[in-house]
């Protein structure tokens, strides 16, 4: 039987506000444990929360970017569960009146554009972190409350995703949008972007849903895709063997490449949510929404279209360039100085991206500013350097942070375009390779390439390749 997977994602995004959602503690990552805490985020008796307006602002911004309706009235509700990293044993979240609802985003998978529904976007506070210390008798646990009260947005998709690849594309697109909005660092490895998946399978064509499994602990796009692939296969195998899928929450084990059961889901009395009396409801008037809407940056889809319309870039190039806001910004700034957009795009997608990866840098951190890349392309276009040398120069620019012209001059890489000087070298190469010359004359046209290579070698790559070809043909 053929099966299809039904996947919905719950994504938690840590917002990059300066202070926590209900107190003034810092949200910065990596501080010594329990140094960014106060009576409020420790949940001490008698403390009261005060909502950080910036969180609401980021919530509106994100909801709008995800095409959601923004609630005109929203409130917080305590969500109760006993866990030691939640000092109050409840978390302030939004239960029945999320700040955003009924939205969507578009993804492209295998050339097909899909619209994925977004059920809701809501604000909540993050929990702390438990650190387990091994020891005799099973060891003990310590709690770090620095993260307690860091603002989160939870973005819940509709169960519209049908494959792990689609799920990954959704996550990537969501991250891109959040980057464009500048509301989060979106670092999966630091936990500022986290994702849980609900996945079930059913015979293709069936209209009812199968039993849902919640998958947690996927810390990268790759592990999201792998975990879903594994989980779907596991569920299909169960059904094929005539067994049933038991509702459960499972954790992805990256090193073993399997999911393991964290807890079996049974009857629950729920989270006992009700409107939090200590937090006054937030009224979001249309003027506020409109102001945020006016201030929205250009979003990835619009930007991609602009690159196609204004610069004639192919869809593929536009997609790759706009998948990162920093890369797209870099592109815009480079093209402003060097208008051959396709050449800029080729460089950005090719050597520039390769060097970024090699140096483990984001586009915004590149040691080569846009004006220097433009200068490099200019040198190439003028014929001052060859394309091959240009790659070499970019490499050096990344390594040293020096400008294009400086590298070219310091290393004497200016292209030799002097026909007399180059003619002399060509003659020497021909004299030194009589056999190859003979082969060429006997019709082996490939031999020309070898001779070009020899000239390049003799000139350390600086010879103007067009001129070399011309001179060789003349002298042969």
């Amino acid at each position, binding site marked *: 039987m053929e099966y299809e997977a039904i996947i919905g994602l719950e994504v938690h995004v840590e917002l990059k506000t300066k202070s926590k959602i209900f107190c003034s503690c810092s949200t910065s990552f990596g501080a010594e444990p329990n140094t960014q805490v106060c009576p409020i985020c420790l949940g001490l008796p008698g*403390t009261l929360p005060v909502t950080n307006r910036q969180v609401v602002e980021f919530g509106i911004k994100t909801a709008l970017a995800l095409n959601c309706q923004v609630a005109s009235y929203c409130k917080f509700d305590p969500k109760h569960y006993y866990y030691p990293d939640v000092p109050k044993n409840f978390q302030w979240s939004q239960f029945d009146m999320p700040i955003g609802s009924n939205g969507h985003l578009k993804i492209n998978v295998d050339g097909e554009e899909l619209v994925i529904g977004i059920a809701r976007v809501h604000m909540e506070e993050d929990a702390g972190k438990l650190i387990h210390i091994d020891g005799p008798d099973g060891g003990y646990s310590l709690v770090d409350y620095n993260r307690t009260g860091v603002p989160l947005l939870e973005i819940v998709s509709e169960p519209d995703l049908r494959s792990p690849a689609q799920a990954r594309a959704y996550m990537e697109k969501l991250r891109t949008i959040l980057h464009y909005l500048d509301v989060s660092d979106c670092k999966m490895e630091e936990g500022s972007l986290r994702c849980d998946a609900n996945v079930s399978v059913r015979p293709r064509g069936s209209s009812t849903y199968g039993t849902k499994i919640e998958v947690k602990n996927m810390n990268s796009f790759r592990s999201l895709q792998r975990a879903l692939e594994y989980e779907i296969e596991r569920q299909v195998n169960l059904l094929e063997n005539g067994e049933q899928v038991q509702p459960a929450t499972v954790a992805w084990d990256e090193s073993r490449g399997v999911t393991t059961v964290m807890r079996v889901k049974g009857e629950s009395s729920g989270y006992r949510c009700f409107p939090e009396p*200590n937090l006054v409801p937030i009224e979001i008037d249309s003027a506020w929404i409109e102001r945020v809407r006016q201030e929205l940056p250009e979003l990835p889809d619009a930007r991609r279209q602009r690159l196609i319309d204004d610069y004639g870039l192919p869809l593929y190039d536009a997609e790759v360039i706009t998948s990162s806001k920093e890369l797209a910004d870099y592109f815009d700034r480079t093209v402003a100085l060097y208008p051959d957009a396709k050449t800029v795009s080729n460089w950005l997608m090719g050597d520039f991206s390769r060097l970024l990866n090699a140096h483990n840098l984001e586009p915004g951190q590149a040691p080569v500013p846009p004006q220097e890349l433009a200068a490099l392309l200019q040198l190439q276009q003028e014929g001052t350097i060859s394309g091959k040398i240009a790659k070499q120069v970019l490499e050096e620019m990344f390594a040293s942070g020096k400008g294009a012209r400086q590298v070219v001059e310091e290393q004497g890489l200016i292209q030799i375009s002097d026909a007399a000087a180059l003619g002399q070298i060509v003659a020497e190469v021909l004299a030194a390779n009589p056999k190859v010359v003979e082969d060429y004359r006997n019709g082996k046209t490939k031999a020309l390439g070898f001779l070009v290579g020899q000239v390049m070698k003799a000139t350390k790559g600086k010879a103007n390749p067009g001129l070399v070809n011309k001179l060789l043909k003349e002298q042969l």
Partner: protein
Amino acid sequence: MNLCELTAHELGELLKSRQVSAVEATEAAINRIEAVDSRVQAFVTRTVEEAFAQARAVDAARSRGETLGPLAGIPMALKDNICTVRIRTTCSSRMLADWVPPYEATVVSRLKEAGAILLGKLNMDEFAMGATTETSAFFPTRNPWDLERVPGGSSGGSAAAVAAGEAFYTLGSDTGGSIRQPAAFCGVVGLKPTYGRVSRHGLIAFAPSMDQIGPLTRDVTDCALILNAVAGHDSSDCTTADLPVPDYRAALNTDIKGLKIGVPREYFADGLDPEVAAIVRRAIDKLAELGAICEETSLPHTEYALPTYYLVAYAEASSNLARYDGVSFGLRVPGRDIEEMNINTRTEGFGPEVKRRLMLGTYALEAGNYEAFYLKAAKVRTLIRQDFEAAFNKYDLLVTPTEPMVAFRLGEKGNKKPLAMAAADSYTSAVSLAGLPALSLPCGFSQGLPVGLQLIGPSFAEARLLQVAYAFEQNTEYHRRRPALEVA
């Protein structure tokens, strides 16, 4: 002259004219506490050294010629659910018996600023859950008018300390009547301000949608003074109103001619002690005599107030008290694992009345019960609010008995008889649900025990309540009576 018989404003005059020093006033209060508190048992914690240090600082400031406010140098005490930095704040619970807050409540900061002298922390029903102060995990407080009787609750220590002359004024907290009811039982003035009038920052929650801090005093003038010192917007409590605070003392005058007062008939129905009823009727006649127009009116949803109050308050409590788990503050009773530690801590840390309320509140919020209980209560709450709104379209204020009876005997309606105790909340909880200000003042005595008159006003009409109370007080002498606590 026995300083401890004075009101706070009378003492304030003596301090201002330097006839008495703050140290002398503090000494007098501490001597009084030592003389009577072994019987009254109002104090959970005494802060004698700190009190003298504060008194010396006030005296020094006065001798330097600094301008001091009306409360400077006057000894007072706080209900033990109001956080005091470096002084334990217990909620009269084993759970917090050794808990020392690292921060202080806004009301404490404001009183300190005003030069108040803190004598100590006062006994209460555990986590403010009770109406007799018998649910305190430490000991019951006694009514100074009859030591065999309860002082009321949950601010029983706060009311008893004022009545017994142990403090010139105190702060209590009121969720469903916890200031007004003990004020009535102990024959003092108690004010529950409008929800949002006084900051709750640093008040350990029972039910945050109703909790309010307010003063317990020997007369209405003191009540106005204390309210002025603590009221007003606080950026740490987003439920406080950003409204100007009037000069409540300046609003005190005796002219209440033409004021329209409604008398809701539901508060004079079955269950009201006949002698209490007669005393309250006479008090209403007194108001009419002073020129007020008193008319019978109706608050039709009154009978639903009590069950509604219980559902809302217990549900909120079950949420707020979830944090007492033994992990990072308060009592910890170890267990084999974290869950067992949570259970052991809560089993030993909470008394039976708190547990009863937390279980009921938890039940009311559970999936499947929410609509039938919590949500229903929230809707009835709106109806109760609308009853008052309609009444205040016609009347400037409402008047009722504060309690349907006088103080009862210890053990008579204790925590083994929750329904009997419920009667004590029935006259005060509707006001709490509606978030309105209400004041209880002594209006007579029945068999030697004080009877309280409850004045209820529209939101933020504290000045009007105080004015009417003042007019009544100036024409009666009940507030001058003091219990005969023989000094051993």
